[in-house]
């Protein structure tokens, strides 16, 4: 299956989901006014990946900012990953946050408490 690759902009994150490697990355800023429109192709892609996932999927979330409207879409992405995990495949979410960015750490912990997938909180020191 083809990877999904979307270049980042000042308001939307870069997306690199590689189905053949099982390595996914979401990076940058996610603050569009219409987040549903941006995330829809990603959600659809994950629905296809779910049919033939890799034994192990590693997801790196490296967000600098995200708005509340994206937060719901990101939850939808995680729910797709949760379904893959539930079907006995290994899924791991690495949640990166910058040193001292407690808001971003807390946001990761919110997801960790809702989604039944192993999370790792990783501090980035600049």
């Amino acid at each position: 299956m083809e990877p999904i690759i979307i270049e980042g902009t000042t308001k939307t994150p870069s997306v690199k989901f590689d189905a053949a490697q099982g390595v996914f990355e979401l990076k940058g800023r996610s603050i569009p006014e219409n987040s549903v429109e941006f995330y829809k192709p990603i959600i659809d892609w994950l629905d296809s990946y779910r049919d033939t996932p890799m034994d192990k999927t590693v997801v790196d979330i490296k967000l600098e900012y995200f708005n509340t409207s994206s937060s719901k879409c990101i939850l939808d992405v995680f729910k797709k990953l949760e379904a893959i995990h539930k079907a006995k495949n290994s899924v791991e979410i690495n949640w990166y946050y910058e040193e001292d960015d407690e808001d971003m750490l807390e946001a990761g912990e919110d997801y960790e408490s809702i989604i039944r997938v192993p999370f790792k909180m990783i501090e980035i020191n600049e």
Partner: protein
Amino acid sequence: MSFDIDSYLSERRPDDVILDFKGSVDSDFINNTLDAVEQRMVDLDEPPKLKKKVYNVLVEALQNLFHHVDSVPRDYEGGSGDRFGMLFISRDNGAYTIVTGNFILKEKIEKLEEKIKRINSSSKEEIKELYKFILNHQKISEKGGGGLGLVDIARKTGNRLKYLFEDYNESYSFFYLEIKINSKAD
């Protein structure tokens, strides 16, 4: 928590004002404002933590206007359009204050005020739980809002939301919201 816009504006020193805007809050305005305020904070050499809080809160405040403003009453001469709002940003002793204003149909006041009162009477922990509950249970509305903006603002700032509904005519009021971001965000 009521808020007196006139005395608020008259107490600001011109040097403290970062932005004073009245007009259409469209996507371009949001982009330009975020860029300008971010650059200003870089120039002021603000601590990274404060920069992030202000940016995050400003995104939510602007997108709240974008998604929720009601159109301008016909007889209003101060502006027009579907997304008319006001935005005022000031900085005083390292703390930031963001004030937004927009017309609201009177029938919507009760629900909005109820929501703000609920947030203002909640503890830090309760706000966190409220955020998680809405995140997990509420769908994104047709307008694109997720119903999380105000909760997120209160959570990130740790401050109460100050607000005012100013009577305009029989159908409309003008809604002011004052958001304060402390210089040493905790």
